[in-house]
């Protein structure tokens, strides 16, 4: 019993770190472009598929960690120019546009990758004893990678030119433009970065979950929950909420079936929305 609880809680924690990466991408797009991105789950799914293709093409798993975010960034930037820019940040229209994107991405993957879900073999096999249970090494490794990527993203926001531009445009677009920041280019880059984060999350998660053209459908509500519970625009809150939600779901799963776990996190979500719509962590950060 204790082992099951520990195992599922660990799984939840690690899944939460990966979700945090994806949700961060969603939050950045949401916060900067005011786009409700229905296709974000599919960005994640495209990441898993890119990882699968790069593994089968090169035989090397690790290349997927570079291929997925890079191609993701490029697709994201192109999407921003072709689809998002023409609708001028109208949130209601963005729902329709990204719904269309979601269909196109899923169908493209179904044509190229196929409709059958596939499992990917983890590049690091074996287990390691941890608190008295044998735990898969790859999952621990994935958690480490996700943590490094999260830290890297926050450093990127704080210390690179693009990161500072992104924060500036988000803070006050008018002033940022007056100071000579190319806002349009920042939007393109931001969407690319958002896609890249989700795709990277997909590449990391590919050996843990299944690679499937509908793989993003379940991830999407979870990411939105993390963004809202964490507080809109509160990036650190998003990360904390993602980890917390997945960890709690993991805990509940050890005593009840996964559906009950999902329902309990949804109920928690409703409570947060009604009692603290500004997010769970407002007042703790900044």
């Amino acid at each position, binding site marked *: 019993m204790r082992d099951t609880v520990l195992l599922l809680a660990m799984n939840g924690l690690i899944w939460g770190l990966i979700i945090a990466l994806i949700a961060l991408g969603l939050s950045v797009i949401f916060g900067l472009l005011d786009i409700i991105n229905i296709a974000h789950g599919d960005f994640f799914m495209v990441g898993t598929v890119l990882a699968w293709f790069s593994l089968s093409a090169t035989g090397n798993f690790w290349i997927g960690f570079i291929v997925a975010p890079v191609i993701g960034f490029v697709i994201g930037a192109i999407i921003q120019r072709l689809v998002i820019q023409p609708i001028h940040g109208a949130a209601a229209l963005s729902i329709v546009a990204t719904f269309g994107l979601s*269909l196109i991405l899923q169908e493209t993957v179904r044509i190229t990758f196929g409709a059958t879900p596939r499992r990917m073999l983890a590049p690091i096999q074996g287990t390691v004893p941890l608190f008295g249970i044998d735990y898969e090494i790859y999952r621990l490794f994935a958690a480490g990678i996700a943590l490094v990527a999260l830290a890297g993203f926050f450093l990127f926001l704080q210390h690179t030119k693009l990161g500072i531009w992104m924060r500036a445009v988000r803070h006050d677009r008018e002033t940022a433009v007056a100071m000579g920041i190319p806002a349009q280019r920042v939007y393109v880059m931001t969407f690319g970065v958002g896609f890249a984060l989700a795709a990277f999350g997909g590449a990391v998660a590919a050996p843990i979950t299944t690679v499937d053209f509908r793989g993003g*459908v379940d991830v999407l509500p979870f990411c939105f929950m993390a963004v809202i519970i964490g507080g809109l625009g509160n990036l650190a809150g998003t990360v904390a909420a993602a980890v917390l939600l997945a960890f709690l779901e993991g805990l509940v799963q050890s005593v009840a079936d996964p559906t009950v776990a999902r*329902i309990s996190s*949804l109920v928690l979500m*409703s409570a947060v929305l009604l009692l603290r719509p500004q997010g769970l962590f407002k007042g703790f950060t900044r």
Partner: protein
Amino acid sequence: MAVSAATFLISVPWLIPALTDNFWVSVITEILIWSLFAASANLLFGYVGLLSFGQALYFGFGMYGVALGIDHLGLSFWPAFGLGIVSAIAMALVSGVFAVRLSWHYFAIITVVFSLIFYFLAVSMKPLTGGDDGINFSLPPVFRFGGSIWSLTDPTFQYFFVLAVVSLCFFLMYRVINSPLGKGFLAIRDNDLRASLIGLNVYVLRLIAFVMAGFLAGVSGALFAFFGRYASASYMFYQVSGEAVVWTIVGGAGTMFGPLVGTTLFIVIREIVSSHWEHHSLIVGLLAILAVIFAPKGIVGLWNGWMTRLGERDAASAPPRLTLQAEP
């Protein structure tokens, strides 16, 4: 326009089999049902400014009210229909009490969350709901006059029954929108702070709209259960709600017939393309994107814009002609 549309809708059961085949009568029946569902999203988004991503919940309650009423409780047609509608309204009232306290993004998210909770409940209560596979039932007759029995198993009767119910609902919605209550809705959509300052109770008005939208979605769900002779949890998933929003915005949010136009467009394309090409979703996706780029006010909005511009051009060219005629 309106007269020719009405004539077309009434002549469908004879016109369509003469032109193509009976299959399209059932497609048009389905379009009517789904456009009522889209209308429920439109009532909230287009007229009150609340973007609901959870209308599938009330659609599902309408559906299960009918299916469980017939299959488990052994109800006849009308009581089952009533059960479906009442359970949808009750659900909308309970969730609306909480949901309409929030607005914009938060409202959209909480409607999704509520619908997901009941989606997962329906999936997990498989003995009752049948989960994603759903439950089948056999249709009870609608009317029984002495010896003659009217049942939805007759496609022509089914079509007229659906047409009558959907038209009645659209008419009710039209009456509400043009009543003082409807003006209150519009005031809230345009500026909820101003609406509250002129003495409107924003919370209560939003709740009324939410329950009305639940009613429309419930009726469409009940009709769809009769139409398909089954109910399934898969119709409560958030993607079904999303489709109603997309159909509404592409057709024209805040217009009476926008949802009908959007729904017709997407379902007709699905039916035509899917029989020739497996990957018809690509076209649907592309169409949704093109629609918001080139017709941000929806197809009906685009049409109205053209009509206004045409009217202005006529008005601009009319006076000189008058003066010309006036000169000797």
